[in-house]
């Protein structure tokens, strides 16, 4: 089956990111196709490239990037939710006249339409929220 995940919780503040990542791995292990993870609301914080958690805690940003690298899962971040929260890639930073950026590949800023598309295209969309 084709699965999609909607993640709306920030890492470290709530367990939503842990649950989503764990579910994603179980979906892939079961042989399903994970068509994408869409990050909305506070979930966009999962794309914060500067996150520096203590070494004895899981690094969730890196864990998502590893999932993308190993299984080709697109990591789509709602651009409107991200900009409000200070999460900009290089292109958006330039557009807004800001020095530096806080989001990088494999996370990609995209529109909310991609969430609707993911939800209607997949057989299952599972939401994890704070």
């Amino acid at each position, binding site marked *: *089956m084709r*699965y999609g995940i909607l993640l709306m919780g920030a890492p470290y503040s709530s*367990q*939503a990111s842990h*649950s989503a990542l*764990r*579910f994603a*791995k*179980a*979906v892939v*292990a*079961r042989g*399903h196709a994970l068509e994408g993870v869409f990050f909305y609301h506070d979930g966009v914080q999962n794309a914060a490239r500067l996150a520096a958690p203590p070494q004895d805690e899981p690094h969730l940003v890196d864990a998502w990037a590893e999932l993308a690298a190993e299984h080709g899962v697109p990591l789509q971040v709602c651009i409107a939710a991200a900009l409000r929260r200070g999460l900009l890639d290089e292109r958006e930073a330039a557009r807004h006249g800001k020095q530096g950026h806080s989001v990088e590949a494999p996370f990609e800023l995209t529109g909310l339409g991609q969430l609707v598309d993911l939800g209607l295209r997949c057989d*299952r*969309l*599972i*939401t*994890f*929220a*704070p």
Partner: protein
Amino acid sequence: MLLHILNRSPATSEVYRQALAAMGPEDRLLLIEDGVQGAMSTLVGHFAEVTGRLYALRDDLEARGLIAHCDTTVAVTDMAGFVTLTEDADRTLSWF
């Protein structure tokens, strides 16, 4: 048949009422994260109307020291079982 997923405790949040209100007669309810508190024998009464269709995630029960408090009417499932529950259902809805 839909799978509803609840991550809030009935002891702290009224959200469980919304999940119950939205459930059809065959729908199932999976408790995850802080929601697994609802599987405790002292709190499971909030879910009386879905007895036999109530599940709780083992990982989250264990992490919280709640396995021994889990009511016998609740079906305890692991992550692979979570995926199976989503396969068996037509869709899932999350309540948070």
